[in-house]
């Protein structure tokens, strides 16, 4: 009786607070699986964001710090500089990382800070009830773009991977999605490699995960997966932007 699939050890055995079908849950599991596979639970320190994942320090079995909104990369820098031999990661949403935390992520990358960022791009502020994010698509209706995002007024969504790839200190940059099985598997590979890049000391690594927010998108979880495929991926092309060739 072989176990084909089971809960990873690094994921605390509790029910998570996310909405039904929210892909935050999938990404949590992937991160935990990678921690298990790399056998680094005891030497990893994670940093939680402010966003729907605000209390995911409850969900990872490694040591965790909860950071102020947007500041996870700064907090992680503080941690990593104290423990250069440990693995340090941040988990951040698109409001957290791409709005209020823009300076912190850009500079963590520019400094080549040896940390890994798991970046959940769900094109919206989930936690605070569906406001426009820097990654909200043109035309998308949110509570703060009630007439749809208009480029003349609200500008254009930021492509974080493309932007960070311009920084020499960013060693590994990849965009993935978790809207179907194949992509979930790719996502895990990317997350694993990002952690390994950190372990090898190449510099900053980030994996952007296209993710869903059925609640604030106002559609059901299955349709939300389709929305990622049909609407998000065309604007946010998947793939590796940097570091695919690094040996780990």
């Amino acid at each position: 009786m072989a176990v084909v699939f089971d809960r990873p050890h690094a994921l605390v055995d509790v029910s998570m607070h996310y909405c039904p079908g929210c892909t935050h849950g999938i990404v949590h599991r992937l991160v935990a699986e990678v921690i298990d596979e790399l056998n680094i639970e005891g030497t990893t320190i994670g940093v939680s964001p402010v966003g729907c994942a605000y209390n995911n320090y409850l969900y990872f079995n490694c040591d965790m710090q909860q950071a102020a909104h947007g500041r996870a990369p700064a907090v992680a820098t503080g941690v990593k500089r104290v423990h250069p031999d440990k693995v340090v990661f941040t988990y951040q949403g698109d409001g957290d990382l791409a709005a209020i935390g823009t300076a912190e992520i850009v500079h963590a990358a520019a400094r080549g800070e040896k940390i890994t960022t798991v970046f959940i791009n769900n094109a919206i502020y989930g936690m605070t009830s569906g406001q426009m994010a820097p990654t909200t698509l043109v035309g998308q209706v949110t509570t703060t773009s009630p007439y749809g995002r208009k480029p003349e007024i609200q500008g254009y969504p930021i492509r974080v991977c493309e932007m960070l790839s311009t920084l020499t200190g960013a060693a590994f940059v990849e965009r993935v999605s978790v809207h179907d099985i194949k992509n979930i598997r790719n996502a895990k590979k990317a997350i694993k490699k990002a952690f390994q890049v950190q372990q090898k000391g190449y510099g900053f690594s980030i994996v952007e995960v296209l993710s869903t927010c059925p609640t604030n998108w106002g559609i059901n979880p299955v349709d939300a997966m389709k929305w990622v495929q049909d609407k998000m991926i065309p604007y946010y092309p998947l793939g590796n932007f940097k570091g695919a060739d690094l040996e780990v």
Partner: protein
Amino acid sequence: MEQKIIIAGFGGQGILSAGRFLAYAGMLEDKNVSWLPSYGPEMRGGTANCCIIISDEQVGSPIVNDPTALIAMNTPSLDKFEKIVRPGGVIIVDSSLVGRQVNREDVVTYAIPATELASEAGNATFANIFLLGKLIAHTNIIKPESFELSLKHGLREKYHHLIPEEMKVLRRGMEY
């Protein structure tokens, strides 16, 4: 007269809007009213409740610590609020969803399988209205006509065709 009401249940059961319709109806009758929702970062899927005060006098604090009436639409809500209802007050539970009896003996209790009855009447999501009916009947806090006006004001045009049905459910609740 002053009624301090708590309506509580799961998110998605129309808890907050039921309270709002009630408060609005009170306002239409020129009473002093307040409505206060519970709010939290984890409302989704979690519990929801709101406090409504309808009074002849000025409303003091909108927080209700000693309700004269409680509508409970799930077990955790009954657990949480049962004990603070004023002696002589009323507790109305949706017995389709609440798995237990009310323990208080010093209050009036109605256990109504509202979800079942409402779905028999055509729409399970009107369970809240059914229970409100009972509340209105028991307390006389507002007139059903005011409630109808309140629905008209509060619902978007495209849902107005549902109002007759909702009023029917309300009256069935009143009569239950």
